[in-house]
């Protein structure tokens, strides 16, 4: 069973929505479309207040090289350009508020079949860029930039990330089971952007046997290889995935294309298919609504810009008062301070939990047990980072080591002294950035 060499943990899986078929959430009356749903500069609005928009119409343009377009998720009227909308990232963000007219009228030329096999590489990349597709696994890196690496980096391996190692989250799993054809066609489109002899892996964690079986069946006759992976967190992290499937290790400061690899999330590949084959921009996504406090845990296909309160209502409301709302998974997701937050391109899950432990969590002194070093998938020394950060001596941390930390949270998960390790590491990174600039 293939897996990555160093570190890793196995938190309780809690995949309570594993058997819930994807339901489509009806478009709500009000949609708050954030202008920053991706890495890089936020998009600039190109519509004004009271303007009428159609479904899929571009309402904000990418600003710069690393940026993405934003589209109207439904037809309706722009009621406001809100400068201070709450966002899942925690900060106030700019957003376009649209009042739906219920017609779901597509803009011209969209939602129509396309003969994509005859398209050139640049045309395909252009469609992906027009659709505003970003990495939907959580990072939000613009897909058209990722699929167009610098000319000197030869890509020989394409990896489809079906690991979904975070507890509770199941949207990728359900997509694999319910729409394997579209995913494989999307993979074909992406593979066609590179050399013919590119090796394609589909990595799926072994706690999803049904998905492995279905994908293996459907990929018979294609050069794609389905590889079951050991269930270990953070299997879905691209550095670890590359190591598991190809054995290559990224050294300090390297990116996947430096070792000839490219990793994509399942939802992203699905969106790429819809964009290239059907001219559909990215305006909806599948997410899991889970947690012990939600009445009915579901997997939903929701329109971007839907507020979490509407989603909670659709799922039957809360069983009891929650003390935490998490967007994403419990290991790397962000906890929210309000339910008025809208969902974005990178929202893969919503967790409503009553975490009793949080009420009494206190940090204690490091007892030098070494567990954090054992589990760190990047082979770092988390205890030392925290030690130096607390004493404001962050300049003594080797910068490349600090940047290698992907904040997966394995160290904090195992620490018996309950130290907030990831937060201190993030703090140290910010402190170093402040000192420099």
């Amino acid at each position, binding site marked *: 069973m293939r897996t990555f060499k160093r570190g890793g943990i196995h938190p309780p899986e809690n995949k309570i929505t594993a058997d819930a078929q994807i339901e489509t959430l009806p478009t709500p009356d009000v949609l708050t479309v954030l202008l920053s749903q991706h890495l890089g500069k936020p998009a600039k609005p190109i519509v004004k207040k009271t303007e009428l928009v159609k479904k899929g119409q571009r309402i904000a343009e990418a600003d710069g090289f690393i940026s993405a377009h934003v589209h109207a998720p439904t037809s309706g009227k722009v009621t406001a350009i809100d400068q*201070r909308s709450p966002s899942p990232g925690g900060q106030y963000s700019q957003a376009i508020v649209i009042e739906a007219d219920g017609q779901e009228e597509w803009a011209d030329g969209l939602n129509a079949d396309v003969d994509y096999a005859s398209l050139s590489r640049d045309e395909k990349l252009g469609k992906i860029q027009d659709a505003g597709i970003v990495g939907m696994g959580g990072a939000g890196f613009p897909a058209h930039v990722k699929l167009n690496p610098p000319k000197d980096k030869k890509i020989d391996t394409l990896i489809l990330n079906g690991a979904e190692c975070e507890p509770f989250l199941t949207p990728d799993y359900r997509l694999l089971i319910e729409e394997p054809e579209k995913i494989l066609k999307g993979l074909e489109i992406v593979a066609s952007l590179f050399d013919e002899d590119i090796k394609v892996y589909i990595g799926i964690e072994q706690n999803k046997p049904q998905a492995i079986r279905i994908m293996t069946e459907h990929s018979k006759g294609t050069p794609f290889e389905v590889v079951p992976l050991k269930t270990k967190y953070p299997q879905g992290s691209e550095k670890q995935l590359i190591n598991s499937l190809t054995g290559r290790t990224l050294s300090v400061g390297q990116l996947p294309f430096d070792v000839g690899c490219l990793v994509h999330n399942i939802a992203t590949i699905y969106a790429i298919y819809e964009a290239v084959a059907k001219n559909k921009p990215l305006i909806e996504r599948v997410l899991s609504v889970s947690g012990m406090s939600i009445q009915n845990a579901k997997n939903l296909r929701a329109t971007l810009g839907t507020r979490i309160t509407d989603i909670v209502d659709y799922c039957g409301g809360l069983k009891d008062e929650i003390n935490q709302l998490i967007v994403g998974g419990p290991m790397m997701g962000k906890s929210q301070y309000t339910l008025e937050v809208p969902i974005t391109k990178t929202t893969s899950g919503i967790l409503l939990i009553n975490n009793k432990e949080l009420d009494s969590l206190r940090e204690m002194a490091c007892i030098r047990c070494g567990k954090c070093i054992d589990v760190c998938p990047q082979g770092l020394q988390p205890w030392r980072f925290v030690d130096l950060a607390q004493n404001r001596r962050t300049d003594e941390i080797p910068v490349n080591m600090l940047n290698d930390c992907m904040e997966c949270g394995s160290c904090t998960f195992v620490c018996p002294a309950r130290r907030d390790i990831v937060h201190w590491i*993030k703090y140290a990174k910010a402190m170093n950035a402040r000192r420099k600039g």
Partner: protein
Amino acid sequence: MLNSILIPVISLTITALVLGVSIVLVSKKFHVDEDPLIEAVTKLLPGANCGACGQPGCAQFAATLVETRDPDLTCPTISADVNEQIGALLGMELSATKPVVCVVKCQGTNAVSKLTADYHGIMDCWAAKQAFHGTKVCPYACLGLGSCLSACNYDAMRIVDGIVEILEENCVGCGLCVKECPVSVLELQEKKPDRYFVACSSTDKGGATRKYCEVGCIGCKKCEKACPVEAITVDNFCAVIDQSKCTSCGECIEVCPTHSIVLTKDNII
């Protein structure tokens, strides 16, 4: 028996003498000639090595001052008296130091300013700003977690009910806390017997400010109209009092509907 005592005593005494003489010789050989003025100036400085002057420590400040004789190189924390004494030592006129004190441009305690959430994380203002936009709904408010406190070398700050409070008798105006604040809510103002200032940094429209804070400035301009010397300007829905024009008449504080204007009586030595 005498031998067993005599030998150790003699050997240790000789070792001590040899080492002692070596220390004296080494200290004489590697002695660094320093201008005695530098030591005299250093003695007059507070010695907290706060770095507010821009030099890495009080001793270095003294050394640079003695070397360059730059009249603009001043220590912001000393009184005018001590500044004169230093000037006298060096036989030159130093730029006058204006006594300044740190001021918090926010009154948003937990009682009057709405909180966003129950924050469970590192108790540091920058850390909270990373996790989410801050403990208070007002994006300009003091977060009250004490990043400034950890920068203060003079014990002049404390956290009370969710915002920072300056202990004026200890504050020397070095300005290190001002640099630490992530929302720039701290400011250095010149000491005055009756100092009026607007304790709010919110540039939000009045209606919005009112929703999340009871004592925030709503930009109503009543103070601007009431001021007899036109020292107050309302810029972007937040009033600012120009201290150089203010005559401390107190008219503004009477008319302010949200009690955003604060009077502090400074103790000037």
